[in-house]
Every structure is written in structure tokens, then in C-alpha cells.
């Protein structure tokens, strides 16, 4: 627990400057269950504050209580003062004029945050109406001007589009534009970048920081990423299970966290701890003799798809080799060809040209039937454990299924192997009869890993195995994976867009862009000495926590924002 004087950041501001937002003793319950307990913080004018914590920490609930957008059935008590006015108890009729005009909201998932069957323009008009401007033509001009301001390069086309016609990054720019258009005093951003690619994440955060400065808006940023919070805000409130663990100036909380929880949070962020797993990983780096055949060999593979009459090259002349017992990472943004590459590797797609072999067996150009023997040695752990496990099956059934499919051993032997696989991923036996619905995200992903382990494969393909999980759960899963590799000599193909994570656990890496490998080599070489501009831009997008200068806020940087291209 933090010492008492660090629990309230009130002391940060001189008593004369009244804070814009003042939250005191805020508690929120869903039904009879209290999820936020007695939370308090203050946010000054033009300042920024991050609420940070894992899922279930209550950070989004606090944001929604401030916005008074809690779902029905939730009730909030305590005081929320905005510009000196208590708003929690205000009748809806009197609070509504503040919405949008004084308090803006940037949501988490841009893909679902605009009405799918109405054009962006119609919805933007709702925001423009809040400015008090009555002339429709001027309103529209305001919208187009704002779209240009947030870096959308064809405002008229965005105005006429439906949400599904734009990319996630563009939609988030639209939403930020709509939120700042009426010039609110406070902007609440609820994980504004967690659904976006890394490089876009950086651009969106840069945009938010710039607007916050230019327009003198106060920012309440909700995030699970300590590195992002440290980089972008003046003060931090660390939450766990609905209670404040620690609060204060970002620089002091970040550099010398007082509470155990903040320290753990700091340790679990891959960007801040590149060498955390060095001990577990380094045995894989031993020097190899040239006669040792690689476990996986992909040579000059190309795959094209015909989409709407156009030919798209999803994978273009990709080659890499992975020595046994090491981890090779494929990194790149969405659409870079990572997923198609692993589908080719697993034999789920046939390459147009090139060859793939795993442990000396060719994967490409084989019949489905003969691939079965390859699949015994080649397993996949899927991205999202919330959708990849059949919810009606028990853990035991899920983990045993591959053994049943390949008719391995007697039923006693199968049961023993299931228990061994579960023990390997650190799950207790009493979970055997549970169904996925009764497991946490981390437990589910362990089940998925156990399921891939039970056939005793040599190679496991990990498709963004932690992207749906919290940072601390991610750290647990990474540890499980590295321990297994050290113990069983597994070879991993690790697909990720998170470079910080790749730096922690991979040995070699291929950086992919638009279907081609732009750079390849050992993790140390690539990260310390990137030769390709694209690799450098990916590396730059890793949030660095607190740095001396905040480059996003330098005036010079304002004109260099890359504009999103219309698809």
C-alpha cells in the first residue's frame, strides 16, 4: 500500500487554482456488487491524468461515471465536481447540455463507435450542432476543417463515407475530431488506441497530445499500458480492483513506485523491461554449427489471392530459416502478410511458388491426408482464447481432443498426458472439469497451450498469443512459453505486432511489410541497428515511458504527421 500522502494528488496543485475535475469518494456498484471503492483524484485545467490498471480495475467504470454513461443497473455515489459544479446528482435534463460541449469522449473501439448504417457526415453534424452554429453550411465547413486538423487527408470523402469503409485508425481520428469539435474543456479517452496497430497507436496518441496542447483541453486518459501513461500524462492514478493503489505526479510514480502493485505493473510492461527473460531465453542463442539443419525452412514463398477481380500478393518471396529450440518472430502491422505466412506454414494454404519444410518434411505440395503426420509435430496457439475454445467442452475434453483425433495411447495414457500437459502450463488439476466460461483469460490461453503441447510437437506457431490479455497476464504466459521452450526444446514461430514483446522473448526476427520481408536477423541486431526505415518506425512506436524530451509536443513535429491514406 502507498503511504497516505501519495494517495491524493491534491497537493500537486496550488490551492488557488481550482481544478477542472474533482472526484471525491466515488464508489460505483453494479447491482449489489461494488466495483469502484472510494476513489478520488483531481485534474487541473489543461493538464492530463491517466487512470491505469488491468481489466476489472474499474478504470473504465470511473470514466463512465464521470461521463454519466454508466449502463443501466449501475449506481454511483460520492462527488464528481466539474468546474465547481457537482454533476453526479444533477438531473439528466441539466447534465445533457454539458455532454459533448464541455465534456468530450473518445471511445475504446473505433470500429463499433459510429452508427454503421448512417454516414459519418450525418453523425458529425450532431457534434457540429453543439457549437451553437445554426447555419448548416458553416457547420459542414467546421466538420471538414476538423477532419483536416486531425490528419484525414480527404475530408469530403470521409464525410460521405459509412464507417465500414474506413480503417480503424481513420475512424479513431474521426471520433477524436468529433469529440474536440465543440471545444470541450475536458476530454475523456477510454483506451483510445488498444484496438489499433502499434504505429497507428503512436500517431493517435501524438494527435491527442497535440490537440490537448493546442486547444488547452484537460485529458483524462484511461489505459492499461504504464509506458503510454508515463509518456503522455502529468499525473497517474494506479487502480486495482476498484481501489486507488497509488497516485501522484507521473515522474515520481513512474520512476520510484511506492506500492507493490505499481512496481509489478512496471515490471510487467515489455517496453520497459527488455531483458526481463534474458536468463530463460539466452540458452537458445548458443552458437550453432553450420551442418545443423534448421527446424523450419521457408524458401522464396509467394501466395496471391484474387479479390474482386484484382490480384493481391499476400506473401511475396518470403524466406526464413529457424534453428531448433529457438523463437523466430514475424512482426508487422495488420495486412503485412504475417497471418498468411503462418497459414502457409501450417499447410492450410498452398503457396503459388516456393517451398516450406518442417523438420525435414515438406509441407507444401502435399495432400491433406499426408499433412496429418506433419501436424502432429506442428501446432498452433490462436490469438484469442475467448473465442478459440469450444465453450461447451470441459478443459479435459479440450486438451484431450488432439490425442483422440490421432488415436494415441489407451484412455489411461491419454488422461495421464492431459495431466502432464496441464502441469507443464501451470494449471491445477481441479480445473479439469471446468468449462472455458469459468476460466480467466490467462487460464484459457494456458489451456490452449496445453492443448497444443499434448501431442508433444517440436514446433508451435503462436499467433499473437497475448494480444487479447492484460499486461500482467501476458507476462505470465510469456514465462510459461519460455520455460517450456527451455525444458522441452520447442521451436516457436511467434507472430506479433508488439515489438517490445518480441524483444523480450524472440531470438531471430523477420520484419514484414505488405507481404515482403524488409529486414531479417537476430533480435539484438535488428533492435539496436535497424537498417530499414520501416523497422525504425516500428521501433519508434514502442512507448518509452518517461523520456527527457517529449518529442510529440515539439512544435516542429506538428507538421510531420503522416496522414492516413483512404483505402
Amino acid at each position, binding site marked *: 500500500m502507498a503511504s497516505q500522502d501519495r494517495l491524493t494528488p491534491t497537493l500537486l496543485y496550488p490551492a488557488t487554482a481550482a481544478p477542472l475535475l474533482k472526484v471525491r469518494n466515488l464508489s460505483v456498484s453494479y447491482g449489489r456488487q461494488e466495483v469502484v471503492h472510494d476513489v478520488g483524484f483531481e485534474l487541473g485545467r489543461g493538464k492530463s491524468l491517466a487512470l491505469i490498471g488491468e481489466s476489472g480495475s474499474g478504470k473504465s467504470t470511473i470514466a463512465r461515471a464521470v*461521463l454519466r*454513461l454508466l*449502463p443501466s443497473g449501475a449506481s454511483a455515489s460520492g462527488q464528481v465536481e466539474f468546474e465547481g459544479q457537482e454533476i453526479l446528482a444533477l438531473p439528466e435534463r441539466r447534465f*445533457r*447540455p454539458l*455532454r*459533448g*460541449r464541455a*465534456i*468530450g*469522449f473518445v*471511445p*475504446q*473501439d473505433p470500429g*463499433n*463507435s*459510429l*452508427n*454503421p*448504417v*448512417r454516414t459519418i457526415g450525418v*453523425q458529425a453534424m*450532431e*457534434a457540429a450542432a*453543439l457549437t451553437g452554429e445554426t447555419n448548416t453550411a458553416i457547420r459542414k465547413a467546421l466538420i471538414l476543417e476538423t477532419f483536416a486538423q486531425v490528419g484525414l487527408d480527404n475530408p469530403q470523402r470521409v464525410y460521405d463515407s*459509412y464507417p*465500414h469503409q474506413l480503417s480503424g485508425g481513420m475512424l479513431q481520428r474521426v*471520433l477524436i475530431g*468529433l*469529440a474536440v469539435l465543440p471545444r470541450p474543456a475536458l476530454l475523456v479517452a477510454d483506451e483510445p488506441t488498444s484496438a489499433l496497430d502499434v504505429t497507428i497507436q503512436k500517431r493517435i496518441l501524438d494527435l491527442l497530445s497535440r490537440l490537448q496542447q493546442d486547444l488547452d483541453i484537460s485529458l483524462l486518459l484511461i489505459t492499461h499500458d504504464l509506458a503510454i501513461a508515463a509518456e503522455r500524462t502529468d499525473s497517474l492514478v494506479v487502480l486495482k480492483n476498484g481501489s486507488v493503489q497509488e497516485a501522484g505526479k507521473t515522474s515520481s510514480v513512474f520512476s520510484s513506485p511506492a506500492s507493490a502493485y505499481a512496481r509489478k505493473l512496471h515490471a510487467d510492461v515489455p517496453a520497459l523491461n527488455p531483458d526481463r527473460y534474458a536468463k530463460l531465453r539466452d540458452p537458445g542463442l548458443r552458437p550453432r554449427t553450420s551442418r545443423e539443419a534448421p527446424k523450419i525452412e521457408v524458401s522464396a514463398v509467394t501466395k*496471391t*489471392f484474387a*479479390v*474482386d*477481380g*484484382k*490480384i*493481391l*500478393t*499476400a*506473401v*511475396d518471396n518470403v524466406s526464413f530459416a529457424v534453428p531448433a529450440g529457438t523463437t523466430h518472430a514475424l512482426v508487422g502491422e*495488420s*495486412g*503485412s*502478410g*504475417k*497471418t*498468411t*505466412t503462418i*497459414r502457409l506454414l501450417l499447410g492450410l494454404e498452398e503457396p503459388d511458388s516456393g517451398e516450406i519444410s518442417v523438420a525435414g518434411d515438406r509441407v507444401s505440395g502435399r495432400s491433406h491426408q499426408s499433412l496429418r503426420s506433419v501436424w502432429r509435430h506442428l501446432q498452433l496457439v490462436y490469438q484469442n482464447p475467448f473465442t478459440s475454445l469450444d465453450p461447451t467442452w470441459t478443459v479435459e475434453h479440450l486438451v484431450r481432443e488432439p490425442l483422440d483425433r490421432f488415436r494415441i495411447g489407451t484412455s489411461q495414457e491419454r488422461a495421464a498426458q492431459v495431466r502432464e500437459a496441464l502441469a507443464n502450463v501451470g494449471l491445477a488439476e481441479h480445473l479439469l472439469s471446468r468449462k472455458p466460461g469459468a476460466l480467466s483469460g490467462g487460464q484459457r490461453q494456458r489451456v490452449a497451450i496445453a492443448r497444443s503441447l499434448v501431442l508433444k510437437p517440436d514446433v508451435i506457431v503462436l499467433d499473437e498469443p497475448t494480444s487479447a490479455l492484460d499486461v500482467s497476464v501476458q507476462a505470465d504466459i510469456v514465462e510459461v512459453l519460455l520455460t517450456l521452450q527451455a525444458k522441452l526444446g520447442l521451436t516457436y514461430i511467434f507472430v506479433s505486432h508488439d515489438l517490445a514483446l518480441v524483444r523480450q522473448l524472440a531470438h531471430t526476427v523477420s520484419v514484414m511489410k*505488405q*507481404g515482403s520481408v524488409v529486414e531479417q536477423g537476430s533480435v539484438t541486431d535488428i533492435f539496436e541497428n535497424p537498417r530499414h526505415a520501416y523497422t525504425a518506425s516500428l521501433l519508434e512506436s514502442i512507448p518509452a515511458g518517461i523520456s527527457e524530451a517529449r518529442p510529440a509536443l515539439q512544435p516542429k513535429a506538428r507538421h510531420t504527421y503522416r496522414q492516413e491514406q483512404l483505402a
Partner: protein
Amino acid sequence: MSNAYLTYAAKRLGQAVVVILLAYIFTFVVVSILPGDPITSVLRNPQNGFTEQEIAEIIAAQGLDKPIIVQLWNALSGFLTGDLGMSMRSNRPVATLIAEVLPSTLILASAGLAVALVLALLVAYGTRFVPKKYGQGLLRGFPSLFLSVPNFVIGLMLIHIFGFQLGLFRVINPDSFWATFFAAIALGIPVSAQIAEVLIANLDKEAEQEYATVARSRGIGQARLFATHLLKPASLPVVTVVALTIGELLGGSLITETVYGRTGIGSLVQRSVSTQDLPVLQAVVSLGAVVFVLVNLIADLLYPLLDPRVKIVGGRKRSPTTADEPSIGATKAVAP
């Protein structure tokens, strides 16, 4: 209107024509292969009192002495040119008989549909704005209540209250506005239940979507949220439901017409069934198929125009869920 859409429309239209023809042939074959030869059994029924010579004349006039395949060809070509044959009872063209009663049924069915839509919308609106303590739960129970009460019970109740007790319309030989009005209500209530059911469920789903919350953060009030944001996406599936309830509406019209003593397709069918007038029945069944296919065709053609997310790929429409799926990693465009 894009080329893809026109291709899609042409394809669906072609399919519709094929379905109608198949439905006609199917009913024809079923009638022909029915055991006991219903046609001659009607003619030879002593109660009808036809002489052998008259029977032979009728059989020759209807072409019943020709091979079955020729009969089918004659019937089908007649059907396509609007000649539906002669009624066996009244010796008048079937097309004329139907044309006499069709407008009355169409008025009743359209009025019934209008009642159903308005009622469904009112109930759905109520479930969002009537507070829990003032009977929102009751409103939510309406669809199941309406669905479980048979159509004729509502019809009889309305006749009893508004016809006999309040004397708003004549019960014998009714033709007034009020008679049609109450018949339409009796017909529309069960249909409205199905529409309301879907509409309520979809409104609940849409209200929970993130975009609704975000719209509220822009200061949009509940009433405007309902009208400008929730109603359109929630109504899209209703288009399909309405098309499917057309069958119900037609079947319900027959019952309602009987209960209210109206002339219409219902009374025509009733008469033709009791006298086994097969050419009329065949024509009415085919007409039902035509209406059903046409309404569903209209729904299919409307859907891509109403929902911008629906993509037409290779002459087929793809629902939003499949259209949202990203194609796997394919990004680099190369000129073919």
C-alpha cells in the same frame, strides 16, 4: 445503382420466375396424381345431375381427355398469358372470378399489414420509454400474448364489442370503413407480434452497442437516439420478417374474411373447396405462390439499398457479418 446491383437484381428476378413456374407445375402435378380423380368424381356425383353427354362436353372443353403432359403445357401457357381456365361450377373464367374478389382481399391485407407495423412500432417504442414501474414488462409480454391468441378469437371479440355492443358497424353484410378497420386489426395483431418481437430484441441489442453510448456522449437525448440512431439498424431485419409474414397475412385474410362475412379470396376458396372446383383452387394456390415470391423478391432487392454494409459479391448479397471479415493478410494490389 451499380452494375453489381443490377446483376444481382436480374439474377434474383430470374430465380423468382423459376420458383413461380415450379410452384405452378407442382400444384398441377399434385392435383393430377391425386387418387380418385376428383374431377370426374365431382362431375359424376348424382347430386350434380350432369348427363353423360354434358360430362363429355365439359371434359372436352377443359381438355381433360388429352395426355397429362399436353394438359400441363396448355395450363402453363394459359397461366403465363393470364388465362387461368374456366371454373367448373359457374362456367365463368377463373381470372374473372379472382379479379372480382382480389381488391377486397388486397385492401384487407394491406390494412392488416399497416396495423401490424404501427402496432409493432408503438409496442417497441413503449418498451424503451415506459418506465419499469408503469408496465414496461407488460408491454414486453405483448408479442407472446398476441402470438398465442388465435386470429379468429380476436376477430370474434372485436365483432362482439364494436359490432354488437357499440354498434359501430353492421355485422351482417358489412362494407363500412369500420368493418374493414376492425377486420384489419384482427388480422394485424398476430402479425404485429412477430414484427414487434424482432424489433424489440434488435432495439435492445442496438441500444447496448458502443455507438449508442458515444452518440449519447455527444448530448443526444433518448428520444432522438431512438429515432435517428437505433430505429434504422434495428428495423433492417424486420424487412425480412415482414416478407415472411406475408404468408400469415394471406392465410389470416381467409380466416378473417370468413369471420367477418366479407367477400374476398377467402370466401372464393371456401366455396371452391366445398364444391371441389379445381381450376379455381389451382389458380388461387398459384396466386399465393406469386405473391409470396414477389414480396420476398422485393425484400431481397431492398436490403442492399437499405444496409450500406451489405456487399454484393458475384451476384449474391453478403451479410454485414461476413463482409466485416478481413481478407487474410491480402494487401498488395498488383495489376493483373
